[in-house]
């Protein structure tokens, strides 16, 4: 049995006429894209951006080693920030769905606060104010924690939508075999909720990865910071940013692939996804 895709759900199978139209549109749009790309390359070469002085250092191993160290920094900060965002988001979500009313309101307030304040403000807070309070965090946490807090509200809401999506019969079945509420939640509801929302959760994690680029403010050596160092060393802005951009795309692409395979392996169809 072929797996049902979102495409199948949204559109009926194209007929002869539609297939013809699709083919024409595909060719035309490919041409447009190619022309556009050629135009960009032309702009680049005209402004001298393709000169070898902007690109020669990419043939050196040290450049890639340096970029790779940056990638490791980005992965470290992202991993810490991502897991912290999940943990904090989980706590907020528990507060929001708790039967105890005052906790609900605190949860709502925390979610709105963390979602409403820009990431940069949290970073400056941890960078400038927290050390003044005599709390000395390792540099990686100075970027990871504010990024995590900034994402936690979103994560909390995504988790909550997952919990709400689990059919109530699952809870009843678990109760009927004698499970206690806490176990019903931890063993039945939550694991299913996570599977429903893996794609949405990964979107949040992609935002976390992107937010770690603020590392340069603290001179934490992530990909962005190391790219900046390369730029000032070789006076090559566009080429380095282009390469760094591609690496970020690859990181987030792999994050996406992992999530899709996770969702598939779980035996449940994700609500959205490919």
């Amino acid at each position, binding site marked *: 049995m072929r797996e049902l895709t979102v495409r199948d759900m949204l559109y009926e199978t194209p007929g002869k006429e539609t297939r013809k139209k699709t083919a024409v549109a595909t060719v035309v749009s490919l041409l447009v894209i190619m022309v556009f790309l050629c135009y960009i390359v032309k702009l680049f070469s005209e402004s001298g951006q393709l000169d070898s002085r902007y690109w020669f250092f990419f043939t050196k191993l040290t450049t890639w080693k340096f970029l790779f160290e940056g990638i490791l920094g980005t992965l470290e900060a992202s991993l810490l920030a991502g897991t912290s965002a999940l943990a904090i988001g989980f706590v907020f979500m528990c507060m929001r769905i708790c039967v105890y009313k005052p906790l609900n309101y605190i949860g709502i307030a925390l979610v709105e606060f963390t979602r409403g304040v820009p990431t940069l403000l949290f970073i400056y807070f941890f960078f400038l104010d927290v050390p003044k309070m005599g709390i000395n965090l390792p540099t990686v946490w100075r970027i990871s924690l504010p990024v995590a807090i900034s994402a936690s509200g979103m994560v909390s809401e995504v988790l909550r939508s997952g919990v709400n999506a689990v*059919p109530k019969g699952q809870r009843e*079945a678990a*109760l009927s*075999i004698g*499970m206690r509420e806490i176990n019903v939640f931890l063993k039945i509801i939550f*694991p*299913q909720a996570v599977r429903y929302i893996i794609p949405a959760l990964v979107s949040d994690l992609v935002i976390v990865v992107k937010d770690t680029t603020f590392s340069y403010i603290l001179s934490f050596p992530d990909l962005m910071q190391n790219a900046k160092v390369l730029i000032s060393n070789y006076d090559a802005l566009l080429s380095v940013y282009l390469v760094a951009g591609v690496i970020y795309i690859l990181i987030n692409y792999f994050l996406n692939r992992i999530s899709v395979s996770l969702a598939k392996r779980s*035996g449940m169809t994700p609500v959205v996804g490919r």
Partner: protein
Amino acid sequence: MERNKDVLDKSLEIPVVELRHVEKYYGEMHALKDINLSVERGEVVVLIGPSGSGKSTLCRTINRLETIKSGEIRIEGKKLPEGGKELAELRTQIGMVFQSFNLFAHRTILDNVMMGPIDVLKRPEEEVKKEALELLKRVGVDSQADKFPAKLSGGQQQRAAIARSLAMHPKVMLFDEPTSALDPEMIQEVLDVMTELAHEGMTMIVVTHEMNFARRVADRVVFMADGSIIEEAAPDEFFTNPKSERAREFLDSINRH
């Protein structure tokens, strides 16, 4: 129940399930009106009636998936606790089979059957697994043990759900319209499993629209309408000669085609 009259064991005289003057409201709606029902060990009681008559609600009050406003529900003479550990413990003794199967979607069929004994009863895994496989074989889905519920047909899912309940060794099984969500060709395979259970002496309370099952398997038919028990009788008597006007109308309406 006549067939148990000759048994002298005293514990058998206490009804497995007993409801006394049970009242339930959904807001203004009076869902259950002065329900009195007692089910003996080994008895198969079938609840029938038009939709909205309260039979599902009644079934669900017995393990407190629905709360009641007043009255009393006793399981083997013990009052149904209101919550906490005691309620959870009592629920382990009451199996429940749902209309929509409600197998745990993120676990395999085998895990579904094993979860209760392992996580709730804290029994050793090896022993539980052996028994779970036997149960799955008994309901005929042992070949599907390692699949996720979504890969099974409705009939297979429901039979696996019955195995999940049986794994807890319940004293009574509640069936809340177990075949209503099934395609016609799958209804019989589930009814067959239920019939076998009944013959093995399981105490069962079954909400169903399958009149043939009621006629053949039930010890007693309880007819409900508008939240009240209208009539209770042996199936032969009920289906051939219903006493109440309401039951006659109901039987006429389902026999018309």
